[in-house]
């Protein structure tokens, strides 16, 4: 592997121009991510989480401030930053194998490519499903394929935008475990966006809480718990409650009627 690179976001602002005027989505976002770190970002719907990931991914341009990756501003998407979206975005005309192979860098020798694809099919636990088409798989298996496709090019950073949002609770817990295994094995930087406080605490080295529009990080919590983490330990629950209160503290009494 090449030397690990750091990601630095400095005073980032993003607004969209709409017919009725400018819409500020993100303001004053600052963040430094260490190589190999696992960052969780939680925030309410519409606060700009996806927008932030798309900016890091190079799919959008910053309005002000900068995002430095390995000291250079991000301009374009690239294979050094893998992205997994909420919907798997697999190509329905490719088999699982072909979808994963589509993530490979070009100029690979065919045998090498096959080996890499095979390794990743094993990594995400899809052995035996190489020749299946996406519509023949469950939602969880589709997301694993999408994760494998994002990983085959050996990105420095993996950006996960609510990748398990559409999955049932049991599958989600299983996928969280798998993402953790992959992260430990590949020693990759992960930035995970989620609605799920439990998921954020279970996975992250740090949990960043985003405020509502315009979005900014209003709180950073480091999670000093050793892995594997116990979701029911007192320390885990205390952290969870702290984040929960960030969202609901103003309505802590009364208003229970709903």
């Amino acid at each position, binding site marked *: 592997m090449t030397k690990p690179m750091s990601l630095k976001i400095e005073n980032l602002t993003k607004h969209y121009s709409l017919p009725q005027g400018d819409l500020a989505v993100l303001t004053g976002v600052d963040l430094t991510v260490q190589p190999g770190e696992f960052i969780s970002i939680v925030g309410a719907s519409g606060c700009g989480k996806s927008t932030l990931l798309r900016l890091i991914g190079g799919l959008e341009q910053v309005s002000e401030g900068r995002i430095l990756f390995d000291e250079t501003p991000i301009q374009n998407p690239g294979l050094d930053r*893998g992205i997994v979206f909420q*919907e798997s975005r697999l*190509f329905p005309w490719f088999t699982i194998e072909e979808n994963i192979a589509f993530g490979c860098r070009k100029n690979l020798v065919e045998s090498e490519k096959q080996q890499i694809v095979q390794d990743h099919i094993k990594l995400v636990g899809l052995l035996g*499903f190489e020749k299946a088409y996406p519509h023949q798989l469950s939602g969880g298996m589709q997301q694993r394929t999408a994760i494998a496709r994002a990983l085959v090019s050996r990105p420095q950073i993996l950006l996960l935008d609510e990748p398990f949002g559409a999955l049932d609770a049991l599958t989600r817990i299983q996928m969280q475990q798998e993402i953790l295994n992959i992260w430990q094995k590949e020693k990759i930087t992960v930035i995970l966006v989620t609605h799920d406080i439990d998921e954020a605490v279970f996975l992250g080295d740090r949990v960043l809480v985003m405020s509502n529009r315009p979005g900014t990080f209003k709180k950073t919590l480091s999670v000093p718990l050793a892995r594997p983490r116990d979701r029911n330990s007192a320390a885990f629950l205390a952290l969870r409650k702290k984040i929960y209160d960030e969202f609901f503290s103003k309505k802590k009494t009364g208003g229970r009627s709903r």
Partner: protein
Amino acid sequence: MVSNPPPKPKHPFSFYLLPFILPILLITVWQLASNLDWLQSSILPSPLVIAQTLLDLLKSGELLKNIAVSLLRVLEGFAIGAGLGLIAGLIMGLSRSMERLLSLITGLLRPIPTIAWIPALILWMGIGESSKITVIAVGSFWPVLLSVIQGVRSTDPKYLEVARILEKDRVTLLTKVIIPSALPSIFTGLRIGMGIAWASVVGAELIAASSGIGFMIMYAREVSQPDVMLVGVAAIGLTGLLIDFLLLQLQRRLLKWNSVWGGES
């Protein structure tokens, strides 16, 4: 393992019988009406007479020869028309400025019915093969052009984003993302184009030809053989049905990834 496709659902026998009920009923009534002399045989011969003529024409090889001649013209014309439609459709679908550049010309030419070109083409190219093949090419060009443009345009931007993230070059983008995504739409255009091609060859042969299924019909009318005429008409319908069936099989094979288009329909 999921490598085996799921077994096709079994239909009851009546499912396969259903399409044949109405035609059989119609032919029976027709035959009865002929037997009762309600129909004049010089205008509408009875089904039995037509069947006898069909057998004669099959035996003499005349029918199959004429169908083969027409079919060859269709294949040549369709290959040219659909091929050009595919290329022009890709260019116009991919580039807004190219579409803009060509929009007025295509807008003017497209509403002209294919048969309206026949006299002009005969004037320019004579009554030989080339004028007929050109008519067919023109007829099949338009639906293919429009469906390719439509298919290319409707590529989901989410897929294009994935290709951008994975740093794919333009050729890969076109061949692995845009064209597969446009394929269901392209197939619809090909099937419509083939239907028009088959209809145009008959039209062209009705006007000027010395062979082909259209010529056979026209000649039968001139020599007052309504049974031969009707065999020709029926042969056009059957051949058209067969061609569409073959295209549908090809479509299922190529679109087997698509649960809607590749499945039973």
